[in-house]
Structure formats: structure tokens, C-alpha cells
């Protein structure tokens, strides 16, 4: 068949299946997908430029707002960099509390994407039930931090509020409830016929491809690659906690989702360990660091979606010189196009959903020309159009 006879179908940017603006140009031959082109750039907010104007303290709140769902990991990555440049050390209790909030966030993020995937599959009952139970996790996050989504909890040098025994026992009760419910939902995901038909054997990424295309997080662990920043490069209190690294070998949509479901159990385990081991002592340094000495630092954390990298350059003073953010969705959404091969048009939203896409996270880019020594901002849309993906 001649290439020009393929039909091009736009999925998005305003599409009922996708909750955030992203355009997939899907070339189809009948029902079969021939080629997918990802086009982004609908959600650019200029956060990195704004970060250069704000003070170090203000930025801890600004970078929590890069992504709503994973706001504490963004704050943690930013704060880690600042602490490294400034030579500040957070007290052990603060490290444990940070880990507690980050794990609560991982549970609710994974429950959210499992619910959304159930909805994309057409299984609305599971969606409703999961979202109902997820609210309890949000509530326990609210107990610790004071807000159900945007924690604003982590600041350079420690955390803002302390916990007491009453709060911790409330969280433990919620965890018992969630663990029991998730065991049931795991059984549903493993045995239900609708889910098995829509998720198994679809959107396959082989192990070698996953490594070659630099995919991160549960997406790459679903292809059998053992990588997790919490294990590889422990930060906060992860080095002192005992948890398993979960991988599935199939590489399809189902295995990517099962990694997330199993990680919920690991997170529940970790929170129980944290509550048991929580050390006494101060939760923050005596004074907030308002001036940071010149320097440069890179920090990595494991966001619910994968590896999150922050690179901060300080030239001294009250403001950072440059804050570079590389979010996990950036590599997962753009390089994940290999998963659409040999799939049907109806599977496209399901495959995209299995990457846990977070569009708000990924819309930023600056190109640095080493030879000419110039820096220029290039819209992602322009770069993507140059790519030919097959």
C-alpha cells in the first residue's frame, strides 16, 4: 500500500480519554496503527525561568507545583540540591518524615493511575471503588502535612510540621484498610476478563528496547529492568528501610500496571517501618538558609513515575542561577512511541495511560549549543516535528 493512503487521526489535545493536553497523531491503516507522532507544548508555564527570579525559600514552594500529583518528590529533589550546595544536613527525623510523605504520595499516585486505566479500559466500577479508597490516603497525607494534595512540607534544612502518636496511629489504621482493599483489587486486575483482554500482550516494550530508549520508573521495571533510585542511590531515609524492587518481565501494559500495584504494598510496608523506626530529635535546622554559597549540584529521586533529576547552579546570593528539571514523563511519553507498534487504534489511550503520563511535568526545554556557546529556548513542538518515529 502507498504511504499516502494512510489515514491520520488526531488523538487529543482535547480528548475524553486524556486528562491533560497532549496530541498523538496516529497514522492508521484500517484499524492497525502504523505510526504515532507525539506533539506537546500545550502546557508550557515557564517555571524554570520563574525559578531564577525567586529566592531559595520561595522556590521550594514553586517547584512543588511543577506537578500536582508528585509535589513532594519535586520539593525533595530541589531541596536535596540546595542542601548539597549549601552544605546543610537535614536531621534524621526530618528525613524519615520526608520519606513518610513521599511514600503516601506514591500510594495515592499509583492508585490514581490504576483507577484511570480502569476507566480507559471501560471498567468504571473499579475506577469508582479505587478513587473512593484513595481518598483515605489523601486524608492521611492531610493529617501529616495540612493539605491533601499540595503538601508544602519540605523546606531546605528539614520539614515544617511534626507528627505525634495520635496522628501516626490514624495513618496505621488507614494503611490496614488500604492493604486489605488493594489485595482485593490486585485479584480483580489479575483475574478479570475485561482487564486481561485489554491489558495483556498490548504495547509490548522489550527489555533491550526499554534500555535503549532510556525509559524510567515503573515503565522500565515492567520490562524486567531492575532500576530504582531508592535502591541504586538511596536518599532521605531509604537507605535504612527494607523493601523489594519489583519487576515484571512481560513488558506489556498489564505488567507495567502490576508493578505499580505491587509497589503500593511495598510502600505500605515502608511506611510501617518508618513509623516504627521514627527517631526523636529536631525536625529542621535552626534557621532557614537564605543565602547559598556558589556551587553546582545534581540530585536524583524516584518519583512515582520514575527518575526525576534536578540540576541547580548557584552563583551565590539569594537566588539560584539556573534550575534544570528533567521529569520522568519527559522520556516516557516521548520515547514510549515504540510501544504503539502493531497495536490497534482502540489501544492507543490504554498504552499512553500505562506510562502514567503527566503532561504538566514535562513541558520545558532549553538547548545549549556547546560549539557556539549559546543558549536558546526551543519549543518542544519544534523538536518533536523533526523526529521521525517508527
Amino acid at each position: 500500500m502507498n504511504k499516502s493512503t494512510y489515514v491520520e487521526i488526531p488523538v487529543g489535545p482535547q480528548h475524553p480519554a486524556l486528562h491533560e493536553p497532549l496530541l498523538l497523531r496516529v497514522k492508521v491503516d484500517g484499524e492497525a496503527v502504523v505510526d504515532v507522532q507525539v506533539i506537546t507544548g500545550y502546557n508550557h508555564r515557564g517555571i524554570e525561568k520563574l525559578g531564577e527570579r525567586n529566592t531559595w525559600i520561595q522556590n521550594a514552594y514553586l517547584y512543588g507545583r511543577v506537578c500536582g500529583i508528585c509535589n513532594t518528590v519535586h520539593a525533595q529533589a530541589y531541596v536535596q540540591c540546595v542542601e548539597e550546595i549549601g552544605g546543610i544536613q537535614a536531621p534524621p527525623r526530618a528525613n524519615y518524615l520526608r520519606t513518610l510523605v513521599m511514600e503516601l504520595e506514591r500510594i495515592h499516585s499509583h492508585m490514581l493511575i490504576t483507577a484511570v486505566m480502569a476507566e480507559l479500559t471501560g471498567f468504571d466500577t473499579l475506577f469508582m471503588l479505587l478513587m473512593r479508597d484513595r481518598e483515605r490516603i489523601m486524608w492521611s497525607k492531610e493529617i501529616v502535612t495540612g493539605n491533601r494534595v499540595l503538601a508544602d512540607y519540605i523546606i531546605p534544612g528539614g520539614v515544617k510540621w511534626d507528627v505525634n502518636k495520635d496522628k501516626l496511629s490514624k495513618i496505621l489504621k488507614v494503611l490496614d484498610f488500604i492493604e486489605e482493599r488493594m489485595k482485593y483489587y490486585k485479584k480483580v486486575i489479575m483475574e478479570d476478563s475485561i482487564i486481561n483482554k485489554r491489558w495483556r500482550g498490548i504495547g509490548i516494550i522489550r527489555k533491550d528496547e526499554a534500555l535503549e530508549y532510556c525509559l524510567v520508573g515503573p515503565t522500565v521495571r515492567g520490562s524486567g529492568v531492575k532500576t530504582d533510585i531508592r535502591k541504586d542511590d538511596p536518599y532521605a531515609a531509604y537507605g535504612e528501610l527494607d523493601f523489594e524492587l519489583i519487576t515484571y518481565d512481560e513488558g506489556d501494559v498489564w505488567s507495567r500496571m502490576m508493578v505499580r500495584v505491587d509497589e503500593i504494598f511495598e510502600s505500605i510496608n515502608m511506611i510501617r517501618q518508618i513509623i516504627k523506626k521514627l527517631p526523636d530529635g529536631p525536625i529542621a535546622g535552626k534557621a532557614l538558609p537564605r543565602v547559598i554559597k556558589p556551587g553546582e549540584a545534581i540530585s536524583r529521586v524516584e518519583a512515582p513515575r520514575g527518575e526525576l533529576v534536578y540540576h541547580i547552579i548557584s552563583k551565590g546570593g539569594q537566588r539560584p542561577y539556573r534550575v534544570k528539571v528533567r521529569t520522568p514523563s519527559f522520556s516516557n511519553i516521548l520515547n514510549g512511541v515504540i510501544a504503539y507498534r502493531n497495536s490497534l487504534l482502540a489501544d492507543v489511550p490504554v498504552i499512553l495511560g500505562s506510562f502514567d503520563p503527566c503532561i504538566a511535568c514535562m513541558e520545558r526545554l532549553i538547548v545549549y549549543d556547546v560549539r557556539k556557546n549559546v543558549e536558546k529556548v526551543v519549543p518542544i513542538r519544534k523538536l518533536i516535528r523533526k523526529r521521525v518515529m517508527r
Partner: protein
Amino acid sequence: MPLKLLRETISNLFKKPITIEYPKVLTEVPENYRGKHRVNYNKCVGCSLCAIDCPTGAITMKVVPERKKRYPMINYSKCIFCYQCVYVCPVKAYIVSNDYRLATSDKDELIQKEIKV
């Protein structure tokens, strides 16, 4: 398995709905929920730390001639309720509350205009 999920769905028909009828029934919030906060001007020493740290610039300092000092004023339409001001205040001059009902028909109501000392 499908039958078990069906059983749960049917049992939910006879349970109390999880949805809260908001204006009639208020949502329960924990005690440390970050709601509307205000300044206790009798305690405030006018150090401006809250205004310097505010991420959105919602706090402005205004001179009160009788007292010859600058005091913070909060613009609630800009405020993101991160409570950095509450955290950083050296004399704990901020009065916190759980009030999350900030909706208003007039935007000017959200902007503090005068300081009652």
C-alpha cells in the same frame, strides 16, 4: 471474580453514599489543615520576614503612622496557603484556622485593606 465485584456493587446500593452534600454538610478537615489565617497585630513586630518569603507576593508591608512601624497585609486571592509566613514568624503572630470556605462574589473582600491595631 466478576460476580464478587457485582456483589460489592450491589451492596453499595444500600450503603450511605460516600459523597458529601457540601453546602449542607461540611467537609471534615484535620486540626492542622491550612485554612484562612490572619495577623495578630498586637504581637507582630514588623520584621517583614513573611513578606520576603511569601512565594506569591501575597503579603505586603504597610506603614501604620500611629505606631511608626510596618505591618503585613494579606491578599487572599494571591495566597496559596503554604503557611511559610506562619512557619517563619519569630513571634508566632499569625492566627491560624481551619476555614476553607473562601468563595465570595466580590474579589475585593479577599484583599485586606486596613490594619486594625
